[in-house]
């Protein structure tokens, strides 16, 4: 399993790996929003939690179709399925690798970009925590969606349509936690619900992903 994780990380950072794609997208969206909305800090700081969460969600979505498509095309997926590695474990590792190359950089970059949107100072800690808890769920749900569309050529559109509704709860609770943090309210309820979504998706979706992959490999 470690070998698969290391291989995926290595592939992501090498030429053509797509590492940084999500991060660049995140940066562009957040930098452009003040130009579109106008420079009033009151407006910006009110919409900042939502913008930051929507932008990171879309950035995570951007690289989902690479999770299995490349391995499917070059035959690695069939070889992995016949290897001693359980497919459930491979699915979890794939989600983890996606999170390390996408969710984690987004989480670390978010506070700096929150500054551009004049996010309330009290909210920075909650922005970091909510993204840290929430983005793994985005990767795991996305991995499941990627498995569903793995055999399809240009399955990206279908993948987005399938995955976006599943992302909505995470988005709602994530943005809510940051907003409550900014308003000085107690954000623990939203954070816990989001942690529940993350834990639940990591508990269940690897099995669903493996089952779907087996069907798609036939």
């Amino acid at each position, binding site marked *: 399993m470690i070998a698969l994780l290391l291989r995926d990380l290595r592939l992501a950072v090498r030429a053509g790996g797509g590492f940084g794609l999500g991060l660049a997208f995140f940066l562009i969206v957040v930098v452009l929003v003040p130009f579109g909305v106008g420079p009033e800090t009151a407006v910006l700081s009110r919409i900042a939690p939502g913008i930051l969460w929507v932008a990171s969600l879309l950035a995570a979505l951007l690289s989902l179709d690479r999770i299995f498509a490349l391995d499917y095309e070059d035959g690695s997926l069939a070889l992995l399925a*016949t290897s001693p590695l359980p497919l459930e474990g491979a699915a979890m590792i794939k989600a983890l690798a996606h999170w390390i190359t996408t969710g984690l950089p987004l989480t670390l970059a978010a506070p700096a970009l929150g500054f551009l949107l004049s996010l309330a100072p009290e909210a920075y800690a909650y922005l970091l925590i909510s993204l840290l808890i929430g983005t793994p769920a985005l990767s795991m749900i996305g991995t499941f969606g990627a498995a569903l569309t793995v055999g399809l050529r240009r399955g990206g559109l279908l993948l987005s349509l399938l995955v976006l509704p599943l992302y909505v709860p995470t988005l709602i609770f994530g943005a809510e936690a940051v907003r409550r943090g900014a308003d000085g309210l107690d954000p623990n309820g939203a954070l816990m619900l989001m942690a529940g979504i993350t834990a639940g998706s990591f508990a269940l979706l690897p099995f669903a992903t493996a089952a779907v992959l087996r069907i798609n490999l036939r």
Partner: protein
Amino acid sequence: MLRVENLTCARGGVPVLAKVSFAVDPGQALILRGPNGVGKTTLLRTLAGLQPAIAGNVSYPEDEGAYASHADGIKTALSVTENLKFWADVHGADLPDDILDTFDLADLRDRMGGTLSAGQKRRLGLARLGVIGRKVLFLDEPTVSLDAFSVKLFADWLQNTHLAAGGVAVIATHIDLGLAAPELDLTPFKAAEDARGGSDEAFL
């Protein structure tokens, strides 16, 4: 070591082969013959467990099967050694020292997968079989895009290393590998064409 009884397998839900039975003893290879579309690939994928059989039994020691097709699973952004090391790690095996020499890859060890020629990629894909240490090999057209010299290299490895160590191989191929192995023509096992227009449809 490998025993197949009354196997019926399907491609895209349409049965292509019915009631295939054969057995392969340790140290033996079996060559599958038959025209394009008869179901050689389908049979091999079913044997390897990538798709379920409609009926019949396949038995070989658990966790000993390995499948290889024209899609080698080679990562273009990894070097030759890294590609092999990955599959060795996944299978919990060590990289044998002589494997690169056996498949004439020693000079290419640090080349990226993407810069290899088709034949070199094929040799790398076959070298994977020598790394993972599995006893029962299901090989689908292993010699595509190999030159005569490389075919000889591969046949020698198969005969002198894999089969000599008690391994088994089922090989679908159109050329003569020079192995002393029985051949099985799949044409007589072709499933009756059904009303939906026959099996070819599923391949398109």
